[in-house]
């Protein structure tokens, strides 16, 4: 069977399962559509959160980023998992107790203000829409590489599948497809990792292999990797980062951004009890942890594999790295996986010194004494996970599995985001503001229509990415961190914060964060409209635009506190509402409050 046929079989088979689930889990009420009927088991929900959360960025890009940045990229590992501690301790149980359908609804009720609710709707839509573009683009890449269709056709196929199960089933359909997608993506991610870990360290468990000895050279894997990369002019893989303040703030932004993203929070509304919300956060992190503990192993092993593919003499015990580096493979002898990825443009080769060999090294370092005139092989971070089975010479079915896994990661997150957008429109905007007397059936229809529109918009933006696709995920986290998370947390932990304080806080956090990002990245991401170059020397106190969400969050807290303390206390019934979300007792009744 050809590789193409295997890929079609795996991807087609997984899609058939998702569609089967959609038909089985059709939503009959708004409660089904928004919160899957409210009866999801915490372990099931944990798995669904895992798929909801782990996006194309986690599955496709993250290991590649770690491979190239080493220790410095630990930010993503800690930031995207540590947020769950905040969710479990500070938000999820209380929002579940509140017992309504959407995040803006809590903000609107708690701060007794339709304006606050609308600010939250705007933040939610910007954060979710920017995030969904990356998912659609990721699905397009996976389609074009593995199924030999162009990215646009691939995107439209993906959109039709998502349309089918999310419009029909809402949260109910999405929950059970996400469970299936989690299983597909975690198998696809771990199987190649197990093989590679065995090949390099004889240890079948990748997170243990990471800290084991490299079997060919006998040295610890990470020590070997440090030697190999420094011989090529890179800094050590495990080297400390100089700008610690920025690393701390970046990690903090990712953590509170994670805790403030509405599509994740919504999933906690689907469990029956407050205690289940706490448990499902734990299970979610177990399921997420399986991938996040595997990723750093994949990263370091793939980096070593890549270098030793180009410099075969570096693979074993090396007496002299200078000699080993002098003997790279010839371009004509490159392995097949380099050839296939060259076709996608994600690997490029330029023989700068015309010697017919491939020199892969840190282009900023000076190796003219070796006769090198620049780094000749550019490898995109995004291909590492997708090319992993081919780099390690694994059988064809593993490649098919990776294709299905990458698509599962992108589509499951896209569906969760689209649901967050459509429920904000149908429940908060239409029922909450425009037409409060809409019937249950009318609202369900409105939810389905807004979901369809959101899918069309997301697909359009995926086909015509607005040039800033790489920046948008940072924007989504910045917005969630600076606007939504502080408002939610203060709504639960303070009775004193009033409507004026909350609105002033959200707006100042949001605007401050957006302005700081735009100053360095360009206004509304339009190229060449930035006021300052986006380099560390220009950042205020060395804080990068990616890390600014945490500063925006602190500003949000401070402004909300100050404005509230000079204005009136919230009314008694609001203080009672805060009181009621703090105690699990009577969880069912909260809806009538």
């Amino acid at each position, binding site marked *: 069977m050809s590789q193409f046929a295997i890929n079609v079989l795996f991807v087609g088979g997984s899609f058939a399962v998702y569609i089967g689930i959609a038909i089985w889990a059709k939503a009959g009420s708004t409660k089904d559509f928004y919160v899957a009927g409210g009866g999801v088991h915490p372990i099931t929900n944990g798995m669904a959160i895992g798929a909801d959360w782990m996006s194309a960025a986690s599955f496709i890009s993250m290991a590649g980023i770690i491979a190239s940045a080493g*220790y410095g990229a630990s930010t993503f590992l800690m930031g995207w998992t540590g947020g769950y501690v905040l969710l479990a301790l500070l938000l999820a149980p209380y929002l579940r107790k509140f017992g309504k359908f959407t995040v803006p609804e809590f903000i609107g009720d708690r701060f007794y203000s339709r304006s606050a609710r609308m600010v939250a709707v705007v933040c939610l839509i910007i954060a979710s829409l920017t995030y969904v573009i990356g998912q659609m683009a990721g699905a397009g890449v996976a389609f074009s590489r593995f199924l030999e269709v162009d990215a646009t056709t691939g995107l439209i196929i993906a959109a039709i599948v998502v349309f089918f199960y999310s419009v029909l089933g809402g949260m109910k359909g999405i929950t059970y497809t996400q469970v299936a997608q989690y299983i597909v993506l975690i198998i696809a991610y771990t199987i190649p990792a197990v093989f590679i870990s065995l090949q390099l360290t004889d240890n079948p468990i990748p997170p243990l292999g990471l800290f084991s000895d490299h079997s060919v050279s006998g040295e610890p894997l990470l020590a070997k990797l440090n030697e190999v990369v420094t011989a090529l002019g890179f800094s050590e893989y495990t080297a400390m980062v100089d700008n610690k303040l920025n690393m701390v703030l970046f990690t903090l932004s990712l953590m509170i951004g994670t805790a403030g993203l509405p599509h994740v929070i919504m999933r906690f509304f689907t469990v029956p009890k407050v205690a289940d919300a706490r448990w499902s956060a734990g299970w979610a992190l177990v399921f997420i942890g399986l991938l996040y503990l595997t990723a750093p192993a994949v990263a370091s092993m793939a980096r070593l594999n890549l270098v030793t593919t180009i410099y075969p003499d570096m693979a074993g015990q090396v007496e002299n790295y200078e000699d080993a580096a002098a003997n790279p493979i010839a371009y004509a002898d490159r392995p097949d996986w380099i050839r296939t990825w060259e076709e996608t443009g994600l690997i490029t080769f330029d023989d700068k010194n015309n010697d017919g060999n491939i020199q892969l090294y840190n282009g900023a370092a000076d190796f003219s004494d070796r006769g090198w005139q620049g780094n000749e092989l550019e490898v995109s971070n995004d291909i590492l996970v997708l090319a992993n089975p081919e780099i390690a010479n694994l059988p064809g079915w593993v490649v098919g599995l990776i294709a299905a896994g990458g698509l599962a990661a992108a589509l499951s997150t896209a569906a969760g985001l689209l649901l967050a957008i459509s429920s904000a429109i149908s429940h908060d905007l239409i029922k909450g503001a425009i037409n409060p007397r809409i019937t249950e059936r009318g609202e369900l229809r409105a939810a389905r229509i807004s979901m369809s529109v959101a899918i069309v918009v997301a697909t359009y933006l995926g086909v015509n990415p607005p040039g800033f696709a790489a920046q948008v995920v940072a924007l989504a986290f910045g917005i969630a961190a600076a606007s939504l998370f502080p408002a939610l947390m203060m709504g639960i932990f303070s009775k004193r914060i009033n409507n004026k304080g909350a609105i002033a806080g959200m707006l100042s956090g949001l605007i401050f964060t957006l302005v700081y990002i735009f100053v360095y990245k360009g206004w509304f991401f339009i190229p060449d409209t930035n006021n300052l170059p986006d380099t560390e020397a220009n950042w205020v106190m060395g804080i990068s635009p990616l890390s600014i969400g945490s500063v925006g969050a602190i500003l949000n807290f401070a402004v909300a506190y100050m404005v509230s303390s000079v204005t009136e206390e919230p009314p008694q019934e609001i203080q009672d509402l805060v009181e009621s979300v703090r105690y699990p007792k009577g969880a069912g009744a909260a809806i009538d409050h």
Partner: protein
Amino acid sequence: MADDKSNAAAYWKANLRLITGCLIVWALASYGCAILLRPLLAGISIGGTDLGFWFAQQGSILIFIGLIFFYAWKMNRLDKQFGLGE
């Protein structure tokens, strides 16, 4: 009624204490051991590198998982103890 109120207040206070404790561990593992205190832990080596690197790429995630289950377990006990469970 007054008893209910003071009981609820005691429950909330116990919860806040638990949250504070858990968040101290959360911050120590990630911002502490993995970033700011890494140079101090440089002497402790593990698998060809230092303990701080292990915290950054593995240890903190394991601690986060443990923290959430610990908090959920403790809170379920508090819910029962104060009679405020579902």
